[in-house]
């Protein structure tokens, strides 16, 4: 299988765990995987990306422009920022709820993510989900990273089976939080439909 999967968002949103689960699940299904993460200063509330590259003939650790099959965006503006990576017929799964940067609160330019979602809908095949909904159900948006994995699996664009992703969630999430995460994952699959 050849698949380029990008995960983007804001430092602290849990993008790294999502990318680790995808990479490991793809490997469990016998694929060769390379990936790369943003580490360092940007993790403090800056824009972060993870690149997961599945396939035999992969050289660059980062996905080249116009190569991503799917982008999982934890934040609307970050989806637009990284749209350059998407293939023409690729898919974006995007959280409609914005993370407002401090600069935004100070200058109050009115950024609320809506314009970004409209733009994405115009430009590409996309599924819009709301982390607010996850928050309402689970009392924390910490589960969003697992929910969006569910959406990705449900969309059929990830190229990795539900079972493989589930197995990796089980392996990586502490028992205490596993049940809620599995529910978030299931909710994601339903949201994709």
């Amino acid at each position, binding site marked *: 299988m050849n698949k380029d999967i990008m995960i983007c968002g*804001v*430092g*602290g949103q849990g993008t790294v765990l999502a990318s680790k689960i995808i*990479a*490991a699940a793809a*490997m469990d299904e016998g694929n*060769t*995987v*390379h*990936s*790369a*993460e*943003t*580490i*360092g*200063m*940007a*993790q*403090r*509330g*800056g*824009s972060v990306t993870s690149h997961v590259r599945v396939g035999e*003939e*992969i*050289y*660059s*650790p*980062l996905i*080249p*422009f*116009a190569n991503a099959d799917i982008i999982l965006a934890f934040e609307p*503006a970050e989806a*637009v*920022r990284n*749209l*350059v990576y*998407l*293939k*023409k017929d690729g898919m974006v799964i995007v959280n409609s709820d914005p993370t*407002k*940067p*401090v*600069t*935004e*609160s*100070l200058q*109050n*330019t009115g*950024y609320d993510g809506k*314009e*970004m979602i409209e*733009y994405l809908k115009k*430009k*590409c095949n996309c599924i819009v989900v709301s982390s607010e909904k996850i*928050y309402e159900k689970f009392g*924390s*948006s*910490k589960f969003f990273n697992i929910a969006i994995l569910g959406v990705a699996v449900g969309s059929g664009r990830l190229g990795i089976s539900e079972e493989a992703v589930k197995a990796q969630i089980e392996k990586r999430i502490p028992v205490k939080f596993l049940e809620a995460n599995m529910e978030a994952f299931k909710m994601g699959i339903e949201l994709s439909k």
Partner: protein
Amino acid sequence: MKEYVMGNGAIALGALVAGVNVVTGYPGTPSSEIIETISKYSHEGVHLEWSVNEKAAMEVATAAAYSGARALVTMKQVGLNVASDPLMSLAYVGVKGGMVIVSADDPGPISSQTEQDTRRFAEFCRIPVFDPTSVEEAYEMIQEAFEYSEKYKTPVLFRPTTRVNHAYASIELPENYAPKQYEGFIKDSKKWVIFPRLSYINHGMIENRNVEIGEDFSKSRYNIVEGKECKKAVVASGVSYAYTKEYLKNFKDIKLIKVGTPYPFPESFMLQALEGVEEVIVLEELSPFIEENILKIIGKHHLSVKVSGKLNGKVPHNGENSTNLLAGILSEFLEIPMQETGIDITDMPNLPVRPPVLCAGCPHRASFYAVKQAMKGQKSYFCGDIGCYTLGNAMPLDMVDTCLCMGAGVNMAQGFNWVESDATTFAFVGDSTFFASGITGVVNGVYNNANMILCILDNSTTAMTGHQPHPGTGRNMMGNVVDKVDIAKVLEGIGLKKVVTVNPLNLEESVNAVKECASLSGVKAIIFKSPCIAITKPTGKMDINEKCISCKKCIREIGCPALIIEDGKVVIDRNLCTGCGLCSQICPVKAIGGASNE
């Protein structure tokens, strides 16, 4: 055993497989995970330490290598500046056991002060350098680096770049590996004590040896030619080689020359590779190191080859390369038209800028704010330093006037006061940075009768690089609980008359401490002690009640990411808030309270 690891993990495991005995280093992005990986894998019999700084790391490892043990030293590129004093001399003296110094370069720069090039350091020190192009190669290459080091009795540099350090791939780890058996130190003052005579003799020896290593490198499997014989060839190194291969997937006939051991330059290899070539383009990050070496060869051998790269403006000098950047450069060079394949995004809406900021609840925010409040309207200079707290420069805090290098702020605060004695000068330094290179600055200030206020932002960890322990934490990398080095006692020992410790999250107490110190002469210190929010449990969440008059003073004053505006009203982002309570102490109408404060 197949392991999916980060580049830094591959370097660590490669060193373990090579039988490394002693591993030292100082955290610095993008190198920090090397030592952390070793601590997580079986490493019985290996001494592992976060040293107090890179110079200490280099010196501890040097003694191990003198004794025939294998030693690994890790740091980021600017750390090599700190370690350069022992390294320059060590290059003359040489080693007995293999010694590999990993200095991770950071094109971009993404998390660094400089875009310096470790290959230049290798040339400056006259020691070999290895430049891996991928995670898989880093794993193999570091094992060979140890072999070369022992074969030629010299320390060697190993310089990955960020995109190799932080990429992930699978490597094959053997079930068993063990530290090397070594002979021990054999006394010989003619060999191990550096004197002018020894340096003179060894300098000549080293230059001859480097010619030999260049020949050896010419046969290395890391220097190869791919594709068919062409008049135009591409030369690439490091991760730029990976980007080039990605682009050349569809043009496999193009001649591609890869250089994995840039110094001593593999001259014979390059001479042969350039046969029949009329034009080359050199793709590398940071300095035009390979490009200049090719120009040297062309001059030396009277070749007629046109060289493109950074020196004729075809490749940018600054910033990192990417597949897309190189695709543009290569399509022009190879005269292959570019294909537009992506989505048209020329009409993209304006995106919010998202600079990194201090986390919600970060005690550094409170420390900076206390000093700002205490010094309002007075001439004061704020010297910053390297760590999370460099982010105190952002609006609205705006509390970092200078930032130069590790520990510089402590001395700079003194310098400003010598030339402008009417200014109150502050140095902000983190706990780990204080130990790494802040202490000597305090001694300098006391000895020279300087006036300054030292603010130690003690969050009990090395936060920016991923929460490594340091001498003040009471834990080390051997997993031992050790005596904490007490910062206040260190300062008192140096002779400071005024050392106060405050909780920065108590605004009034902190402001008073700053005001009191500002009224005294000499070197004064305030230790702002409160743990990093990433290593402690939040105390609760704040709430904004109906008393809020939407004046937004909290946002304007401290810029906490957990304070956001929704429909014109200030609200708390409950996902981010840690309940630190700083905002509640700023609110003019006492509209902010919370679980922990009520």
